[in-house]
């Protein structure tokens, strides 16, 4: 697949790959997708006392688009409040990366992962 420059940038230099301590009360973990579908995203946020996301990490099993979408998502999350993060739309990601139509579902998964991470964090508060 011929991707945009931005997808290649995120794929070649993914931001924020790694894991946070999922046991911590400050951390929310979202895991979405299914191995059988070829797409699994694990996205984690660490939220400070002021409600701002101080750190975000991801790991992805998926194609170039999926990796780029999750990398971009973690980049955007850092410094934003949880409320702002909840408003992140898959179309924001798809447009920024100029994803072809057949790859738009990767951005949907990224949005789902963010929401799942936020939900997980909220449950702990």
């Amino acid at each position, binding site marked *: *697949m011929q991707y945009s420059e931005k997808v290649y940038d995120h*794929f070649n230099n*993914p931001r924020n*790959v790694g*894991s946070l301590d999922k046991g911590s009360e400050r951390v929310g973990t979202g*895991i979405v997708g*299914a*191995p*059988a*579908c*070829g*797409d*699994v*995203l*694990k996205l984690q946020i660490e939220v400070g006392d002021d409600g701002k996301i101080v750190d975000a990490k991801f*790991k*992805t*099993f*998926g*194609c*170039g*688009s*999926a*990796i780029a979408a999750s990398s971009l998502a973690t980049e955007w999350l850092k410094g934003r409040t949880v409320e702002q993060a909840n408003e992140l739309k898959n179309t924001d990601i798809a447009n920024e990366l100029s994803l072809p139509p*057949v790859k738009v579902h990767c951005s949907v998964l990224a949005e789902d992962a963010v929401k799942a991470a936020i939900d997980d964090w909220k449950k702990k508060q």
Partner: protein
Amino acid sequence: MKLPIYMDNNATTPVDPRVLEAMMPYFTEHFGNAASRSHSFGWKASDAVEAARGQVAELIGASPREIVFTSGATESDNLAIKGVAEMYAERGNHIITCQTEHKAVLDTCRYLEQHGFDITWLAPDADGRVSAQQVDQAITDKTILVTVMAANNETGATHPIADIGKAVRARDVIFHTDATQAIGKVPIDVQADEIDLLSLSAHKIYGPKGAGALFVRRRDPHVRLAIQMHGGGHERKMRSGTLNVPGIVGLGKACQLAKAEMAKDSARLGQMRDQLEQGIFDGLDFVKRNGSTEHRLPNTANLSFAFVEGEAVMLKVRHFLAVSSGSACTSASLEPSFVLKAMRVPDDLAQTSLRFSLGRFNTPGDIDFVVEKLIAAVKELRDMSPLYEMAMDNENVDKDKWQTWDSGYASYFPADQGGHE
């Protein structure tokens, strides 16, 4: 070393310089229409076509009069299957094929199914093969055609064609085989293997795209086909249309070279393929072969690299290596490989599969280089993979039993939530 290194020869091959050289005069110098019987331009073209016909026939043990030139194996498959179906419809309406055939065969059978034909889609075993016994058991008194490929394009698995041919002949049914991937790599003899129809293509054997042939048996039995391409009556009326003379000359030359060099090429390819696999298994855990290891083409390796998705691996090595994958992300339909699925390879493994298909122009140096880059890429992607993380955290995962390993992350994805089964 020219990068990226091409290891996708089952998709297509570069034209051998000797083939190109043979073709060139027929574009601008001997450019005549082979059907122009009244002048030397036509005679020259016609002579070249007949010489090529002989070369194709010789590769498969046929007589030149049994070779029909087409635009490629897809057209040959269509001609063979529809040709038999329509011609022998009064005798019966049952056709037997295999679930792992090329789409050119499957889609043609599907079309016939919608037009009153009854199709049996044989399931392969876990190695990707069907047996002669399976075929024999499926034959009824309504069966008019069995079509089973000689070798599979994705896994390289070879079917027992001689056994199948024998079984089908004993039941007085016509046997077609799509031999596109097999010719030039393993010997095929239409007499010894009791084959009645055979499809082949130039661009898989270092010939040009757009040229292929169909072998149509003339004796014992004399196979008749309903015409699919009507027109000026070319190719004994079996396929009208001005002959692609340069393409046909290329096909002929490619077949001649294949016959001459097959034994040597195949030995060399088998060695390199084994070297590739060994290098990968030595450097990585959790790699699984898909398809028969005993009965397969010498040039093909289909491997699943657990925890990393196929397209991502290919993207990571895109400057170094060209291969293909059975993952959903690389298919137009967003479904993982139907061939692997028919072999009961679980979807999550199909998503991680890569197909390496070596060719005449690969060298052992290529192999070492590719192995090194591939191992590094897979390791990098595994470090980014949540599935790898889950498997490593799971004490139940057995690293030593890598051929039958359990994914180690199944507990995270209960099947009822659309997860891994």
